[in-house]
């Protein structure tokens, strides 16, 4: 029997997405998207008003990326490892590799489905709020993910932050499944690796080094998370 089937992975993804997200009515989904976009935009405007429009947009971009991808991931992951429903997801007939791959695939899909409308809504809110928040200091169109922020470098760092959170979360939530020394070595290595993105921001290392380290740790963390998931018991 195949240990990895793309068809089964997609079926598992469909199962989780339907149970957790796609069973909402259009009105409920719009309400959630509005709440998501409003809260992020207003918090960013309130926090970074004195830093200028670029700072504000940059923070909105970071938070939009973070909340759009990380919260679906948390939902999907906890659904996988908790006792829930008639059939626990861990007992659904699919291999663990398929379930894990589905977790990342569903996160990417759902995150993007949340992110795109959120960018549009947040842009509308921001344009409407600029005259009230910044007055005459700011003129013209300043777009979220349209060059209004601090640029691609900041977005890359935000994306790496989310990737690190996504790959660290299973390790943190399953920490009891690992030997203490192993877990803490992994944790410290990750924190140090994340520091690289900050060093990169100041131009001390190249983009290639940052990407290589990130890819290495991502693969290592995915394998480690798989080992942890194999030991999950639903008590």
């Amino acid at each position, binding site marked *: 029997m195949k240990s990895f089937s793309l068809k*089964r992975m997609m079926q598992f993804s469909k*199962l989780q997405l339907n149970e957790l997200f796609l069973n909402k009515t259009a009105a409920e989904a719009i309400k959630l998207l509005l709440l998501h976009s409003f809260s992020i935009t207003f918090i960013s405007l309130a926090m970074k008003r004195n830093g200028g429009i670029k700072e504000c947009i940059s923070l909105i971009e970071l938070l939009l990326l973070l909340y759009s991808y990380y919260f679906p991931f948390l939902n999907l992951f906890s659904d996988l490892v908790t*006792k829930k429903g008639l059939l626990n997801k861990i007992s*659904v007939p699919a291999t663990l590799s398929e379930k894990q791959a589905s977790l990342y695939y569903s996160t990417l899909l759902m995150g993007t489905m949340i992110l795109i409308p959120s960018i549009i809504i947040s842009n509308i809110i921001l344009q409407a709020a600029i005259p009230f928040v910044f007055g005459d200091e700011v003129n013209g169109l300043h777009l979220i993910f349209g060059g209004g922020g601090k640029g691609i470098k900041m977005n890359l760092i935000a994306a790496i932050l989310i990737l690190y959170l996504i790959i660290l979360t299973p390790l943190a939530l399953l920490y009891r499944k690992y030997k203490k020394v192993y877990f803490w070595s992994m944790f410290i290595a990750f924190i140090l690796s994340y520091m690289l993105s900050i060093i990169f921001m100041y131009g001390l290392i190249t983009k290639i080094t940052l990407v290589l380290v990130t890819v290495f740790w991502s693969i290592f963390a995915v394998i480690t998370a798989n080992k942890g998931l194999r030991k999950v*018991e639903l008590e």
Partner: protein
Amino acid sequence: MVELKNVSFGYNPNKNVIEDLSLNLEEGRFYGLLGKNGTGKTTLMKIISGILFAKEGYVNIYGNNPGDRKLETLQEIFMMPADFTFPKMSLEKYVSLYSSFYPKFNKDILDDCLDNFEINKNIKSIDKLSLGEKHKIAVSLAISFGTKLILFDEAANGMDIPTRKMFRKMLMKHIREDQTVVLSTHVVQDIENLLTDIIVLRKGQKTFISSLDDIRSKYSFGIQSNEEGAIYSEPCAEGYRVICNNTNNDDTEISLELLFNALTKEGGIL
């Protein structure tokens, strides 16, 4: 074949719920898993289905350890828990999402079960159903998925008397010769006419496992005016309900309730 050998499990490291349990479950048989509250019925089912891992001992389900959660093992086990919720979606959608994972799923069996349980197949939100209706759907799914091992944990909870009868009827009608069914309950009347074997979990005593045929050949059950010759008795309106050694090869009807009381009484007489 399902085999457990010297299995122990405890939620607390110093106290085992299940201690040194060994049993074999054969194909084509209906096992009644009985025991007072807290004797580990649900825990045992979770170990068999790979949700929990035995702390000691060996569990083998059709050649694999269920804790490894191999695809071929997961496709052959279905455990219906006592408490569960349904997500907010239609019955049709729910069935289409889950049934695709079970290669032996049979839509005709599902339709027959749902029809007999008088469940409308066009339910829009299964999360809003009553406990009894949810159990009817879960039982129908459990039977129709076609797994070789089906574990029912207090499946009759929330079902009224006619539904319990229908539950028995659906099991008798649709369970194949190569399937094994384990039904846990603390209300023995639910399943009396269905079982071929019983497993009684007892606190601090060895687990009792026997086929009902063996019990019938060894013991006779009846009502007497006195306790003479009884290895276990309980007073009742007519005198005493008794269990005696079946020396005359009588073919008496087993009273599971009486047998259960005899087995779970302090000191356990059998």
